[in-house]
């Protein structure tokens, strides 16, 4: 099980060696990145079988917590580490003329993202989060257009503010407890963080890490960045990086901040995210920004779901997150060539019947039409919400339903343009072959999951139950008492 560290170490090591490798042999430089990610993916999949006996905690360098750094491997952490590794491999951005730099950044993303998912220590989470952030700036700016630089700069400013606020939150947590080990925090939190200081710390951490999870007040960067970055980078950010940040927040909520007020803050911000995101998407006139705003709305649904206390909320939120992780990257890949104004998309179905068909399938699942997986995920959220006897949760359920109606409106508006072309109108260019192939793969996975829904749901529920069990986390890490 110690091999799980390779998921972090190998991509990072290769990233820093890549310029040297490339100097020795261009061929090796081209294939080293994908090969290493393939290897770490295989390691991750093999390790999945070993998790049958429950989660595992690894003490790096043999130092016991709280002094040592803990790596905590449960199914959720390994799943996310695998998602970021395989996602980067699938959406490999190192194809263009700037190959070397892009490959390095992609490898860093895989390594740092895995580290973020596996960390059991708040400060380690902060460091990996910053590393992921820097990699994202590089990937977005790599387009090289003035708009891309401006979007990166604005994203960087919001993200720096978020990181500083998160650091202030960490300071408050440390001030109250004297530790940053998540397991030890879970032990101490009911006594020391169940007060106003704990709530302030949670809000600071929520807003800080929420920047990447497209949380409501700190998501102004989303439409700009997704409109200027390449299709693969948008897919990576919306599909995977946002989920990494989200899961960090959820872990903190489960382990450290159990007070009801913390759940309420997240619920309200989630509701505002759904309302603002879906309305803005409805008004958007170009496909890329429409998808970007819709992604804010979807992340809002996840925040609402995770704010439901107990395993039911984690299960529902995880289902929406996993569904979004497959659907949104595929949509962004299709939008790589079709990102312009929706009016110019008329007749796209004639140029690429497969692309248009895929878009309709993904859109249907995103809206939540049965029997596609998106329906089951949304149903889970609504059922869990209705079991909470509080007005705000009912309001959230209403907002999610209204958001689905808006989603149906704007996505069908685009889809109908695909199939109606006025005579004389120039159809858009077809999606690139590689993008279409990757999107087809994701679409096929979505279709396959319709038939495997029962075992899949059981698996996701098992992951959620394990993640929601704070007692098991503490028992697994088993930190020593403070000196």
């Amino acid at each position, binding site marked *: 099980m110690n091999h799980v560290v390779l998921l972090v170490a190998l991509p990072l090591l290769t990233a820093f060696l890549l310029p040297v490798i490339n100097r020795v042999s261009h061929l090796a430089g081209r294939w080293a990145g994908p090969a290493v990610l393939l290897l770490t993916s295989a390691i991750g999949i093999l390790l999945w079988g070993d998790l049958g006996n429950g989660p595992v905690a690894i003490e790096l360098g043999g130092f016991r917590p709280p002094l040592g750094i803990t790596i905590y491997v449960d199914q959720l952490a390994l799943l996310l580490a695998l998602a970021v590794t395989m996602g980067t491999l699938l959406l490999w951005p190192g194809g263009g003329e700037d190959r070397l730099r892009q490959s390095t950044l992609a490898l860093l993303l895989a390594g740092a993202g895995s580290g973020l998912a596996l960390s059991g220590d708040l400060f380690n989470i902060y460091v990996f989060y*910053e590393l992921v952030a820097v990699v994202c700036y590089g990937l977005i700016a790599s387009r090289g257009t003035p708009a891309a630089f401006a979007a990166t700069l604005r994203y960087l400013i919001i993200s720096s503010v978020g990181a500083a606020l998160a650091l202030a939150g960490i300071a408050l947590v*440390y001030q109250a407890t004297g530790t940053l080990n998540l397991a030890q925090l879970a032990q101490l939190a009911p006594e020391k963080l169940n007060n106003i200081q704990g709530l302030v710390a949670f809000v600071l951490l929520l807003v800080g890490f929420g920047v990447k999870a497209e949380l409501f007040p700190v998501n102004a960067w989303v439409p700009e960045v997704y409109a200027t970055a390449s299709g693969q980078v948008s897919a990576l950010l919306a599909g995977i990086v946002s989920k990494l940040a989200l899961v960090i927040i959820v872990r903190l909520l489960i382990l450290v901040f159990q007070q009801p007020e913390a759940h309420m803050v997240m619920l309200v911000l989630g509701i505002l995210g759904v309302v603002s995101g879906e309305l803005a998407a409805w008004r958007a006139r170009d496909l890329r920004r429409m998808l970007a705003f819709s992604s804010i709305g979807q992340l809002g649904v996840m925040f609402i779901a995770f704010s439901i206390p107990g395993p039911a909320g984690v299960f529902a939120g995880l289902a929406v997150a996993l569904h979004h992780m497959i659907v949104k990257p595929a949509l962004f890949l299709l939008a790589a060539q079709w*990102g312009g104004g929706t009016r110019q998309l008329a007749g796209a179905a004639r140029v690429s019947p497969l692309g248009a068909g895929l878009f309709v399938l993904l859109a249907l699942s995103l809206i939540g039409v049965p029997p596609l997986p998106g329906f089951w995920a949304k149903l889970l959220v609504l059922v869990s919400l209705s079991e909470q006897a509080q007005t705000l949760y009912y309001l959230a359920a209403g907002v999610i339903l209204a958001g689905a109606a808006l989603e149906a409106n704007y996505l069908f508006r685009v889809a109908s343009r695909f199939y109606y072309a006025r005579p004389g109108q120039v159809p858009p260019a077809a999606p690139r072959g590689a993008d279409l192939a990757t999107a087809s793969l994701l679409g096929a996975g979505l279709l396959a999951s319709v038939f495997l829904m029962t075992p899949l749901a059981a698996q996701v529920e098992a992951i959620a139950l394990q993640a929601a069990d704070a007692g098991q986390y503490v028992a697994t890490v088993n930190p020593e008492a403070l000196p």
Partner: protein
Amino acid sequence: MLDATLIFYVAAVGLILIGIAGIVLSAHLVRVIFGIVLLEAGANLLLLLATYREGAAAPIFVKGAFPAVMADPVPQALVLTAIVIGVGILALTLSLALRVHRAYGTLDIREIRQRMEQDIADAAGIDMPTSSEAPAPVYAHEDGRS
């Protein structure tokens, strides 16, 4: 003893607030970046204060000396890491600001945003939102700067 620490707490929160105010209120990119630097400094100070002890010795063991109170080394290590990350990101911010200035010829963030929105709209082949659909655009030359 409490008062001395209190001053530092006030300073840390003050730096954070000044930083946020600078980021929100300034239109000049360099001032926004200064705001971020102040905000980070405030957060770092807060982290250092987390376990500050009056008159504590540095946490280094010297033969024969057993200080009664030692400072907690963990926040100091953390702040050192945070400062290094902050400096790295500051360099990246400045280099990006330089690229943006070269492309758009301005450091006014409202104008940069305006130009960027225009570029995005042009690339997508759509018109910019008009005043009936969106708030009227704010141009930098209205307040005499450019």
